[in-house]
Structure formats: C-alpha cells, structure tokens
C-alpha cells in the first residue's frame, strides 16, 4: 500500500476546476474519510454533504473516479485506481459549490411522478393487512429501500439528455406506491408517469440498477410502470 493518496477534488460551481490534495492512506479508509480529512486538515473551505456515515441517509453521494458512489461505504482500497482519486459532484444536478449539488429538482420530480402516499383509511380504521407473500407486496419490497441518494439520477443518461425526464428514483418510488394496496391514487399517478418525461422515456440501459448502492433495480420498476400504462391504454383507461 502506498502511504499517500493523490486526490483531485472539484472546487467551485459548474465553472470550477479540479484541485490537488495529498492525503495519507489509512486502514479501512473510506472516500468520505478522505474528503473529511481534506476539509478538516487541509482546506476548511471545502463544501460537501454527509450525515450518518453508515449508508443510511443517502447524503454523501459523489462522483468518484467517474462513477457515482455513496462515499461513506466506498473503501479507498477498492475504488482508488493506482492510488489516486478524482472527486466531482454528482452529474445531472446543478452544482452549488465543490461537492455539494442542488437536489431541489431531483425531489420535485418525485412530486411530479406522484411520489406522495395517498391514504384510503384513517387512524380510526383497523390496520391494513398486507400479506408479505402477495405479488404486489413483493414488488413494492423490491424497490422500497431507496435512500434518496441521487446516484441513479446521476448515472442515468436519459436524465442527461432530457432534463424533464422524471428519472429512475422518482419512477421507482411511483412503482412502489402503485403496488401499495393501501394507496388511493393509482389512477392519477399512472397518468403522471405515463409520458415521454415519465416511464416511457426510459431506454432500459440499466445504469441506475448498476450503480444503486442498495442494489435496487429501478429499470425493473420502470418496466413495471410501462406494463401498467400499456394495459391501462389497451383497456381505454388512459
């Protein structure tokens, strides 16, 4: 193991540039440890986001050597090619400063795609019984562990081509709600996602599934939405 890491970090907004830092290697060091070292020891003006440091909050995603990753669970040993790191902000979102991006548009797309649960009962009703073995529950289960990190959104080439495209995270959320038997907005939500800016715009390239840190498959979720949309269209419901 070499003793030092050669780290290039994006500084500034979208018109910024890479700046070089030398960071000592450590045992079980993560990419987030490297960024934190730079901010605390070398350059306190470096901006970046993190919170939980254990892969739950989804706030520390960055582009590491060209690939979108959650940096708190990306070990330097695994991702640092030839002892060097290039850290940039996530793609497809405006850069606020350095490694922090503006995720406003990302979350607005969740709303556009009907990402809000619409209850059909109140707290006075009995708790809904959803059999874990039911196909709808299993379909929802497959996509429900999303931590909103934005990695799939950054990895998606359709988002890069068409800024209006709702993107894999928002559509994955819509798919889990379409499979939630307690939700009362299936029709409206399907209308919201059944367009070129919604699920029909997906080319099934699978970058979202490839880079999802939680091994979810948004491409599969979007394919499910496409099936629902086509069935509804053939029945004349859309």
């Amino acid at each position, binding site marked *: 193991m070499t003793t030092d890491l050669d780290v290039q970090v994006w500084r500034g907004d979208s018109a910024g540039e890479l700046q070089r830092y030398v960071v000592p290697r450590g045992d079980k060091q993560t990419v987030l440890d490297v960024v934190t070292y730079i901010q605390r020891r070398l350059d306190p003006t470096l901006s970046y986001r993190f919170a939980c440091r254990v892969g739950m909050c989804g706030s520390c995603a960055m582009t590491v050597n060209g690939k979108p990753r959650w940096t708190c669970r990306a070990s330097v040993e695994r991702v640092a090619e030839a002892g060097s790191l290039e850290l940039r902000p996530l793609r497809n979102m405006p850069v606020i400063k350095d490694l922090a991006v503006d995720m406003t548009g990302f979350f607005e797309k969740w709303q556009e795609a009907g990402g809000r649960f619409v209850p059909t009962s109140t707290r006075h009703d009995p708790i809904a019984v959803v059999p874990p073995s039911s196909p709808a529950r299993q379909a929802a289960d497959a996509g429900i562990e999303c931590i909103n990190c934005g990695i799939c959104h950054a990895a998606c080439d*359709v988002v890069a*081509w*068409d800024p209006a495209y709702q993107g894999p995270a928002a559509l994955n959320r819509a798919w889990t709600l379409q499979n939630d038997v307690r939700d009362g907005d299936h029709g409206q939500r399907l209308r919201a996602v*059944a*367009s*070129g800016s919604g699920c*029909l*715009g997906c080319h099934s390239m699978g970058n979202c599934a490839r880079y999802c840190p939680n091994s979810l498959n948004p491409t599969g979720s979007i394919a499910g939405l*496409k099936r629902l*949309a*086509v069935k509804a*269209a*053939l029945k004349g419901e*859309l």
Partner: protein
Amino acid sequence: MSLRLYVLQRLTALVMAPLVLVHLAVIVYATRTGLSAEAILGRTEGSLFWAGFYGLFVVAAAIHGTIGLRTVLVEMTGWRGGGLDLAMLCFFLAVLVLGLRAVVIVT
C-alpha cells in the same frame, strides 16, 4: 413520447418480429439457392400472399421507424412541437409510399 405513440410502436414491433424472421429466411434461401431476379419475380408477381406480407411489413415499418426517429430527434436535438410533427408525417408518408410502390411493382 405520448402513450398512444408508445403503444403503437410496441404493437408494430410485435407485428414485425415474425415478418423480419421470414424476410431473413427468404433472403438466405434466395441467395443460397442462387435464384435469379426473374425467378424471384416469377414467384412474387400475382401473389396475394407476398403482396399482403410485404404490404403489412411496409406499413408496420413506416409507423415503427417514424416513431423511433421522432424519439431520437427529440432526445438528441430537443426539437418539439408542430414542426416536428409535420416533418415526421412527411417522413412517414415518404417511407409508406416508397415501400408500397416497391411492393406493387414486385407483386
């Protein structure tokens, strides 16, 4: 892409899948057996089957290809609106007319 165009493109793909396989088999058969142009025309002229087969192929391909080209243009150039619709209608009609003309000539 609207849902209507999406469904239409999938349905035309379903139609074309077996037609493409038969078309490829015909090409392989014609080239392997060394059929001359006259021999091929002798089999296709007056044939309702081949007129229907390639007529359907041309219609499905014209619809399918136009929707695909429209999607590529929207994504790569950002072109949208009435101008795009008109251009795509012209492309569709050109493919349709040229294709059906070829079918009429050989059958």
